[in-house]
């Protein structure tokens, strides 16, 4: 997973190349519910996502750890952190979630990246007019 090409030119200089090394992936997601009044709390949101994981990937899926790093109840947007190995399972569960408390809903995944920094600097968000 990791290859290093280190050159000891000076005592200070050091270069390391890490490949596929990010332990986590980060997701910027937004929950859309057909009833605008529905505003799950952050705990409800996390439970809801775990239920989705359990439905699609069973107890092994429900056991995948992920974190809700940030959640805005007004816009129903959240930033999730997931171990890279669990990304596909979490993402596919989010995709196949379709109802929240008997209301139709959908998770819109806006961005996914191995770098949390990338979530705040996406040039596709540039709006000029």
């Amino acid at each position: 997973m990791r290859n290093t090409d280190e050159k000891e030119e000076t005592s200070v200089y050091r270069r390391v190349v890490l490949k596929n090394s990010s332990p986590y992936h980060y997701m910027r997601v937004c929950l859309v519910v057909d009833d605008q009044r529905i505003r799950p709390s952050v705990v409800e949101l996390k439970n809801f996502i775990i239920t989705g994981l359990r439905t699609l990937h069973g107890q092994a899926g429900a056991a995948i750890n992920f974190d809700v790093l940030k959640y805005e109840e007004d816009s129903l947007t959240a930033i999730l952190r997931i171990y890279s190995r669990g990304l596909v399972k979490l993402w596919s569960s989010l995709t196949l979630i379709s109802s929240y408390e008997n209301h139709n809903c959908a998770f819109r995944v806006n961005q996914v990246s191995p770098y949390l920094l990338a979530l705040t600097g996406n040039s596709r968000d540039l709006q000029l007019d």
Partner: protein
Amino acid sequence: DATQHRSEELTQTPRHLLVCERSSFQDEKNRLSTQVEMLHFNYKVSVLLPECSSAPSQLDSVLNSFTSFYLIKNLPVHELLDQHFLQTAVFQGCVYALSYRTRIDEDNCVALMPNGRLLLSLDKDSFELLGFEGKPSRFNHRVKSRFVVSVDLTSSCMAPGGSGYLRLVSGLKSRLNLQMDFLLLHHPGGGASLQSLLSRYASSEHRPTISQCRLSDLSCPVLESCDPSDAHSLLEWLGAVDADISWDSSCDFVSTLVCPEPKMTLSSALRVSVCGFLTPQDIQRLISELRCYLEQSRLGSWVSLTVHGFVDSPVSWGANEHGVLKGGENLYTLLMHHDGTYHLHLATGAYDSCPP
């Protein structure tokens, strides 16, 4: 144990690379300025100043003097080869141009690099219509569906009136007729050098948007002991600061994010970001200003600066082809210390070469 036998396919994630470099400004061989200059199309730069509650005036003035850029709508691409434009803009300084609202994994994308190289990243149909030499994209999968045409406008064979030049212009004019919105700027001439183009098409001038945010009581890892194996936790911490993620999560169930140890608390910190179409030269100036600040300031012992490249640019560093599989990240973070040493982290996504 159930978790040990997960199917291989479902645990894999797209490739990504992170280069961690440590060097010093005192080291004559340090390549920082080249590395900064090689990332041509920058979308956002954000700076974190610890123990600082308001931006020093010199820094403010640097931030406010970032070059304005222009948005030109429906510009026919052959206009970038216009003789007058070449004479007044491309051969006189640096022109940065990047097609706007085009996606590198879906649409045709065009970029004019400051060294006078024009890049057309085209789908197969457009490429065939254009009828000009190009190479298949490195990131084609199974079938050759994307091609990259790269021409050096300063070379003799592309001199206006020459056969190569005429072929490309006629291809762009009569056959392909490629039109798109462009982000455009000229260094050092500014709008004046681009006037001929701006006056003929619907265009608007834009200032990079600056935003500042004062943070207080921020948990912060002790950065002196920074080691590359921790690079990801450092970048995560910076990302969390940028995204306004709070550290004192009230509930373990929701989030287990913690500040990397050993940690300390910053009574105040300032986060400044500039967003738009930014030149490496401006970022270079910002870095030197930050170095001055770091030398003068008694309080802060470090400063960090993060630069995000355009996701849909056809190149990342230098002439390295860039593409998007799912993310298209190309960004770097510079952590400068009081003693002149610095840590540089350069990151790319799946479709990119290793950063310089």
